[in-house]
């Protein structure tokens, strides 16, 4: 039983809830743009940009909300660049995404170094962070076994952004499947010419989708910098943007399934920290770098169609050229 004693499942579950928001925000952001027919490979870059800007502004103003607002600003700006290239210029969307990722990986370091001179990181945010919300009555329940932990640590005790992330899941589901905008979004992503014939403005709808994506993606960056670490660090997005994209592919571009994918990846990240150095019966110690590979390997298996069939929006990656 020593294996199960070493692995603390309670803390793995709490860590899963805390890891998932980064991926949920970014994946929901990607969902909007990809459902509208624009591939969003730039999630990583936008996440990094908003992480830097929100940390820098929160530090400079000592106000976390200004930081979050500034993060939204930069992420929306980058989405607009991406929209201009992908929608108006009808350029290559994959190349555009890669370009934004590489450019921002360099630029955030240069700017962090320029402003703070700390080797590409920002100073600790100190008080300019979000506070954890203690649910009413959590104190009274704290001594009750299971229930106290469930209410106080798993459900309660997180920052507002965690609740926002989980609230987004049903909200995005409702927008995509039950609102007028959602119907148009899916229409321009599946068959833009039919949507155009029905009187929907394809390019405007795609720009709107990119705007939604920009706002949502900024939260994942702000969450990384303000909630998870308390400072900006060079390349701190560390592949999370791609992991979110992967959750999107895994979840078949459907909000609820995608969120499940995000939770799964959050779980693996939590497991990796817990399992490192733990002796597993019959296997021995599993190195952390091998557990790190699991989400990527799972994605490749899913993409290969061995677990479920993944069906992308039909018009994804194709610029819309109005037929005359």
């Amino acid at each position, binding site marked *: 039983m020593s294996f199960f004693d070493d692995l603390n499942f309670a803390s793995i579950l709490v860590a899963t809830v805390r890891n998932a928001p980064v991926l949920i925000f970014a994946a929901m952001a990607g969902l909007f743009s990809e459902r509208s027919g624009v591939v969003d*490979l730039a999630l990583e870059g936008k996440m990094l940009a908003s992480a830097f800007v929100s940390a820098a502004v929160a530090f400079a103003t000592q106000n976390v909300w200004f930081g979050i607002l500034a993060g939204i600003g930069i992420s929306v700006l980058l989405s607009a660049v991406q929209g201009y*290239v*992908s929608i108006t*210029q009808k*350029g*290559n*969307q*994959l*190349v*555009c995404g*890669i*370009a*934004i*990722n*590489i*450019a*921002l*990986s*360099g*630029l955030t*370091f*240069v700017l962090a*170094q*320029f402003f703070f001179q700390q080797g*590409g990181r920002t100073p600790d945010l100190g008080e300019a962070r979000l506070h954890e919300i203690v649910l009413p009555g959590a104190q009274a329940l704290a001594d009750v076994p299971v229930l106290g932990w469930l209410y106080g640590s798993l459900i309660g005790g997180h920052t507002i952004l965690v609740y926002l992330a989980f609230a987004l899941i049903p909200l995005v589901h409702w927008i995509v499947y039950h609102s007028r905008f959602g119907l148009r979004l899916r229409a321009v992503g599946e068959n833009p010419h039919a949507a155009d014939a029905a009187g929907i403005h394809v390019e405007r709808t795609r720009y709107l989708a990119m705007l939604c994506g920009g706002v949502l993606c900024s939260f994942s960056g702000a969450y990384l910098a303000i909630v998870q670490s308390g400072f900006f660090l060079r390349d701190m997005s560390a*592949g999370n943007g*791609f992991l979110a*994209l*992967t959750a999107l*592919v895994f979840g078949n571009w459907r909000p609820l399934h995608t969120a499940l994918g995000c939770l799964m990846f959050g779980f693996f990240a939590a497991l990796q920290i817990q399992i490192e150095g733990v002796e597993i019966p019959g296997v021995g110690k599993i*190195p952390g*770098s*091998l557990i*790190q*590979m699991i989400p*990527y*390997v799972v*994605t*490749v298996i899913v*993409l*290969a*169609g061995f677990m479920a069939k993944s069906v*992308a929006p039909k018009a994804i990656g194709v610029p819309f050229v109005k037929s005359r």
Partner: protein
Amino acid sequence: MSANELPRWATAIALPVLNLVSALLVAGLVIYLLGESPVESLAILVNSAVLNPEGLGYTLFYASTFIFTGLSVSIAMQAGLFNIGSEGQMYIGGLGLTLAVLALDAALPGWLMVPAAIAGAALFGALWAWLPGYLQARRGSHIVVTTIMFNFIAASLMNWLIVSFLIPVGEQRPASRLFAESAWLPKLSGILPVLGDTPLNISFLLALLALAVYGLAVWRTSWGYKLRAAGLNPHAAHYAGVSIAKTIIVAMLISGALAGLASVNSLMGSTHYMALNFTGGAGFIGIAIALMGRRHPLGILLSSILFGALIQGGFDLSLEKSNIPPETFIFIQGLIILFCGAMENLYAPALAALLKGRKA
């Protein structure tokens, strides 16, 4: 108005140059905002990377690696595949090279050791590209996503292999042991003493050879014709009897092998050991090079030299100007990919209108 209506010189030379200039102007603006003079920075850069013979040696040394990664991305693009995995393929190629060297360098003389190591690099690189290629060809998994995943998998795998197995006993640095001298590539400064103490080695000549072979194979053989046909219009190519699946897999194998070969220059030509993350983003620079050089051998050569100069000059620049760290050139690399790749036809309408107006 589209790029197709422009004369060939315009699409082959004028548009790429305009795009490059735009990217550099944006970079210059950022350097200006950082409080440094763009003109002075450019002067330092040119002086240190091109005019100074030793600096030029370094520029060409970096370019040798970039030619291979640029070719790797380009050959996949000829088949219509966007291989983002050159970085991981180069990393795994380096593993193949290192394993060959560690196993054989005590026994083999240089003239056998070097080809064996090169073969190891190409083989491992090709194998790492094979699975994404196979999955794209047979199961329709999108190559962009799978190659990104394979980059991450390669990074984790190599982290584990180097830390757990390759560090010599008693060492702390995450790197393999030093290669024996039989696995060191001859330096060109032996023939051209003016280059001074630069790591420029015969892999630059190998890179030039690879460029020539690439040009001949893609444009002068029936295989290259089929490859380009499959890239331009897979349906038409399939109808004409080209096996698309086979073309994809073979293109990815070659692409991976070329990426693997990129490790030869840095490992056997310079460091003589394999360290963690030795690739340093060269695979991603290959994307920029393929897009900027428009997949043409001469274009790839010139873009590789440009990037070599940016890395070399940028390093010297960062020593003089603390506000312009070497990472600035990662930003510039992104700008070049954006302008030369994603917005390659930005100036096409204006240029077409200009040409039309002159004729009328």
